[in-house]
């Protein structure tokens, strides 16, 4: 009897506590998702302000539009390379600043490597845009010293995505480093020493001990980087504006352009749904793949 009374009080408190966020979730996340799916089957008329149901027309339109196909390919390119690059380099940096050097030096480097993660992308993209200039750019200047001829980073279709990737890794790798570092701190240093005495080399210790133990954190960072890259936007917007041509344009850039420049809400929503499905598929693949290499205690 007393237990039931306690339970009733508890669930009343529970609903009181969860209701604000859950209502917000319904209003600003769930309904928008459903609504975007509905809009993707409609065509919006800018002049009358009305919408009519057109079935799969928006989807056939975007899937036959070379611009969305190229944006889709670019987004996948960013996803794979930003995901792997940030996570891989983050792991390497995390090992470097873990405990090889004295603690004070490590703390200093951790802070320096992490700092760009705190700065808005638009600010640093403004600076990197200057660095990537073909003739007056800092990067080409140093490449020239090394005897490498000038690269048209932002002005050539072949390298525009690479410039975006470099900026993305420069900015975000410190965040990955810090999060993976939390996992490395779980690695028993005695275990590493024992392995070393038994003759395991650096790579064996890395593959057999460090990665398995830090795998939950590495997996979390991978998911974070991949989903971050799937919605990549600002860096491209500032650096290249999506160009030259459409060579660096991402799906989100196309959503913003279709939806808010040409007011083609139907096409923008269909692209959003495409992006949503992409996020779902990529996340599922990662979770399925994680069974092979992620070990929770």
């Amino acid at each position, binding site marked *: 009897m007393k237990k039931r009374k306690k339970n009733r009080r*508890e*669930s009343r*408190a*529970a609903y*009181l*506590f*969860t209701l*604000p*966020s*859950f209502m917000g*979730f319904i*209003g*600003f*996340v*769930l*309904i*928008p998702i459903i*609504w*975007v799916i509905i*809009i993707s089957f409609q065509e919006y008329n800018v002049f009358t302000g009305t919408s009519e149901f057109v079935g799969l027309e928006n989807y056939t339109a975007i899937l036959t539009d070379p611009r969305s196909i190229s944006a889709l390919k670019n987004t996948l390119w960013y996803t794979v390379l930003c995901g792997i690059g940030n996570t891989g380099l983050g792991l390497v*940096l995390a090992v*470097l*600043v873990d405990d090889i050097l004295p603690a004070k*030096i490590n703390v200093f*480097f*951790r802070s*320096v490597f992490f*700092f760009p993660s705190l700065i*808005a*992308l*638009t*600010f640093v993209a*403004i*600076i*990197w845009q*200057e*660095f990537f200039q073909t003739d*007056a750019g*800092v990067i080409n200047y140093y490449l020239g010293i090394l005897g490498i001829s000038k690269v048209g980073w932002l002005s050539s279709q072949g390298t525009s995505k690479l410039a975006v990737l470099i900026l993305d890794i*420069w900015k*975000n790798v410190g965040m990955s480093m*810090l*999060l993976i570092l*939390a*996992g490395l701190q779980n690695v028993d240093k005695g275990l590493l020493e024992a392995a070393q005495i038994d003759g395991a080399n650096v790579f064996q210790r890395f593959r057999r001990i460090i990665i398995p133990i830090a795998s939950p*954190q590495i997996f*979390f960072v991978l998911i*974070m980087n991949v*989903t*971050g890259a*799937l*919605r990549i936007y*600002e860096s491209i917007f500032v650096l290249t504006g999506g160009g030259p041509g459409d060579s660096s344009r991402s799906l989100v850039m196309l*959503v913003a352009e279709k*939806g808010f420049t040409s007011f083609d809400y139907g096409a923008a*929503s269909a692209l*959003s749904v495409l992006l*949503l499905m992409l*996020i779902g598929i990529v*996340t599922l693949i990662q979770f399925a793949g994680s069974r092979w290499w992620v070990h929770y205690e």
Partner: protein
Amino acid sequence: MNKKIKIFGKKIKLSHMFLAAVMLIIAFIIIAPFLWVFSASLRASYSEATALPPKWLPPAFSDWNLAYYKKLFSGELPFFGFMLNSFKMSTVITIGMVLHGVIAGYAYAKFDFRGKRMMFGLMMVAMMVPVQVTIVALYKIMNFLGVINTSWAVTLPSVFGAMCPGLAGAFGIFMMRQFFLSIPKELNDAAAIDGAGPIRTFFSIMLPMAGSTLASLAILVFTFSWNDYFTTFIMINDTDKLSLPVGILSIRQPYVKGNEFAAVVLSIIPVLLVFIIGQKWIVKSMTHVGVKG
């Protein structure tokens, strides 16, 4: 590689010196853009700022050209207006998110109630859906609510779908739930025996313990909303209502880049100061997120 040499009376491994040198080079690559923009913002002209070889260090103090900074401080360009807008929006988002995050996180960690798993599961799935996907519908909803082109159009959805990198929505709830899960259940039982109801237990016992996690969450949410670009860019049209990251692009001019360089420097300085002061805490709070990830 394991030869040792003596420096300052201490024996140092050669391999460690090599590693330190590599890390110094990486550190330079990381801070070079900040050095460069500070130096460039003090040059008289764009061509001087971008002249090669690159000037990583600012000119001698007597040669500083402060014209661009004066423009920002005099209000000729609406820079401080942008900063104020950013500050207001980030504050509202942070307070909103911390408030609903802490109570919901507590409920999901400590209470048993019907629909708990379903509600929590839905929210975790929603964490994967970025605002970029729902932006068309969100725009229509904000339009319907009549708040388009006001800061509410940014803060309302952001409070419930904040823009943590790669994660949207229920982030704060998740983080607070992880914290409260780490508090032993016996504490709740003890409070119940003493006759405290669930709500009083929360406010007088649990909440005070959550101080540092709350601060971590607040720092994170504030930073990410301060840096957010996309939502403001879509929802707000009037230049004078823009936040800093969006506004800074609106004062760009071709070939006269001193304004934006100076604006970039002034935007980074507060973050740098906060980082230097709260470095330990910020680094720790980031690690918190990872531990339970």
